């Protein structure tokens, strides 16, 4: 039930991003809730799961909003994988690491998308302007969301882990 709930949360995140969240624009930046969820789950669950979740979530985003498939799937898969990879180096209890990770991850995600779009479509944005007006506010926005979401998601993960241990010990007892 845990992973289907994560997928449903991704769907909800995308629906919110396309509707309600678009009215909460700061500067020119909107939060990327899906990226926040992918990277946090990647940070908690490891690179393999982070990569898969990123791939699925990004693919769904491509289908729902994009005309070409693969942009968001690729970018989010790499971010999920990277968050999981780096997550192994930090204690999960501290809030600063995922927050900074989301800041850097958002910049990397958007820069990667910028490169992909410029390579495959031929559109390129001036990097300095994009950084100031778009990327840094977005990264800050996502970091802020991480501060709110990470403790709750870690709590859910811990709860699920406890249940899983109980279940295993019962099975061993039987």
């Amino acid at each position, binding site marked *: 039930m845990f992973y289907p709930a994560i997928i449903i949360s991704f769907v909800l995140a995308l*629906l919110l991003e396309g509707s309600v969240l678009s009215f909460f624009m700061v500067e020119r930046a909107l939060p990327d809730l899906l990226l926040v969820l992918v990277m946090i789950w990647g940070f908690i669950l490891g690179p393999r799961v982070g*990569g898969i979740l990123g791939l699925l979530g990004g693919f769904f985003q491509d289908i729902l909003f994009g005309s070409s498939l*693969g942009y968001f799937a690729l970018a989010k*898969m790499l971010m999920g*994988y990277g968050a999981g990879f780096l997550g192994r180096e930090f204690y999960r209890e501290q809030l600063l690491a995922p927050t900074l990770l989301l800041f850097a991850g958002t910049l990397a995600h958007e820069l990667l998308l910028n490169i992909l779009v410029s390579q*495959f479509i031929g559109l390129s944005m001036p990097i300095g302007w994009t950084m100031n007006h778009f990327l840094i506010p977005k990264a800050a926005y996502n970091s802020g969301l991480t501060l709110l979401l990470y403790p709750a998601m870690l709590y859910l993960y811990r709860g699920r882990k406890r249940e899983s241990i109980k279940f295993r010990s019962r099975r061993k007892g039987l």
Partner: protein
Amino acid sequence: MANRHSKGYRRLYLLLALVLGLLVLINYTGSRKDFTPLEDAVRTLFAPVQQAFARAGTNIQSFFDTVAQFQNYKIENERLLKEIALLESRLLSLKELQKENYRYRELLEFKQNSGFELLPAEVIARDPSQWFGTITINRGYLDGVQQEMAVISDRGLVGMVASASPHSSQVILLTDPRLAVSAVVQRSREMGMVGIVESYPQSPAYLRLTNLPLEANILPGDQVISSGMGGIFPQGLYIGRVKELVQDQPGLVLTAVIEPRVNFNRLEEVLVVLGGSYQEEEGAAEGEREEGDPPVEER
């Protein structure tokens, strides 16, 4: 250890393969014109949900806009309320001026046609008690007003100047029990049928004409005017209309209930009779009084 390394390489190869695959997918789908059936199905499935979310988003935006604009709306509302209050007060004063203009026109017309020397005055105060009927006007003896001068309006007899100060005067109204006026019925003008008009305590909105002989030629609807006797009030000033006739208890005299044309509660401008044609008639009136007719116009 070697197994762990090979597992790591496997993952890396898988990742690189996925990246490569996705890059190919991006390249492949970049120039396409149609969506795959899977994409169509997903989009069709999610379209109503997206619509519902978009509506919710619009409602939320509208709510936040309202909240954000609340202060502006409040300021605007306060400004508009002030403007409305200002405009209402202007409208009210314009209506008041219109009414005043109308009244002054009537007074002017009356003044020009009356033949009296009249002094217009404004009512500046009225006795709030129910016992007396007096008003204060903004003309005093410096304006030529003297005690016992008649005060009228374009609608008829109002009262008499009771006392005059330099710039204001007290006027005793016909409805005051202290004042009585000799009067006749306009239709017959029988001087032998002079009665006294005075207040009617049982019904303060009316006056009464007393001391009429039983055989007096008077009917309901008759107009009652001042007789001019007593020397204070000019002859022929309109007082009111006979509403009904009542016999007193012993059955010796008649009393007529008079409905005055002047609304004593709403007097705003009056005219003080300074002189004029009335003065010429005064002698006659005094002469008649000397002959022993009873009405004296102040008790």
